[in-house]
């Protein structure tokens, strides 16, 4: 009787471990207060490779977007306007496109031109390292490369509070 109970417990434990191994292992999300994971990826327009390290010393708004994601498409022209409100040596927007079909993203950028660089990552290596949980997700990174704010989704009304956060970070000089 006792042996049978022990065996069934062992089976349950084995089952639980197997299920954990099958479905577990998700990367933990990058959060405010953490150092933004570094990356280097090809530019969507075929230009020079884009790396986050090159923007150290500026406040960076890192935006993950895709052409199939309607709120991402709402955000692009609004972010472009926001970018122009700040001096380029203080604030930059850096985008990472995650379209598996890169051509769709290129076509979208031909129609909606933005002045900030967009990297392409069809294999999802960068969103994986940031532990993206929803599309779009953006990270506001300070001059030292530390994530100060994580923004999930995007609506038109998000621009005003975002502007205030950027203003606050831009006003802080690097030590």
């Amino acid at each position: 009787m006792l042996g049978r109970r022990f065996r069934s417990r062992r089976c349950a434990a084995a089952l639980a471990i197997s299920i954990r191994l099958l479905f577990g292992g998700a990367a933990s999300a990058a959060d405010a207060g953490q150092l933004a994971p570094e990356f280097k990826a090809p530019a969507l327009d075929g230009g020079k490779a884009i790396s986050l390290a090159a923007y150290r010393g500026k406040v960076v708004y890192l935006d993950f977007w895709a052409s199939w994601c309607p709120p991402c498409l709402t955000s692009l022209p609004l972010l472009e306007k926001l970018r122009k409100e700040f001096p380029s040596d203080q604030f930059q927007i850096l985008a990472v496109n995650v379209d598996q079909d890169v051509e769709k993203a290129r076509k979208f950028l031909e129609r909606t031109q933005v002045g900030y660089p967009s990297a392409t990552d069809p294999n999802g290596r960068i969103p994986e390292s940031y532990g993206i949980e929803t599309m779009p997700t953006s990270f506001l990174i300070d001059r030292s490369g530390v994530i100060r704010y994580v923004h999930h989704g995007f609506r038109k009304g998000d621009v005003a509070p975002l502007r205030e956060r950027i203003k606050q970070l831009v006003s802080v000089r690097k030590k």
Partner: protein
Amino acid sequence: MLRSAASLLLLALPLLAASGCAAVKPWERDVLARPDMAWEPDSLEAKRNTHIHYSKEASLPGGGAGGGGCGCN
């Protein structure tokens, strides 16, 4: 002996089936976001049908979760 082998097989079968499952990451919803991947291709028609259903059944509909779409916002 035969019984324990049968239980092991019972345990292994669902695991084998589950190994075909994979969680779709938010940035991998490219194909799922296509309009033809939606449960209901015509959203207006779907809303009308749901309205008729819960008016007649006096219950709330349970649609809207899972399926296609980009899962944005």
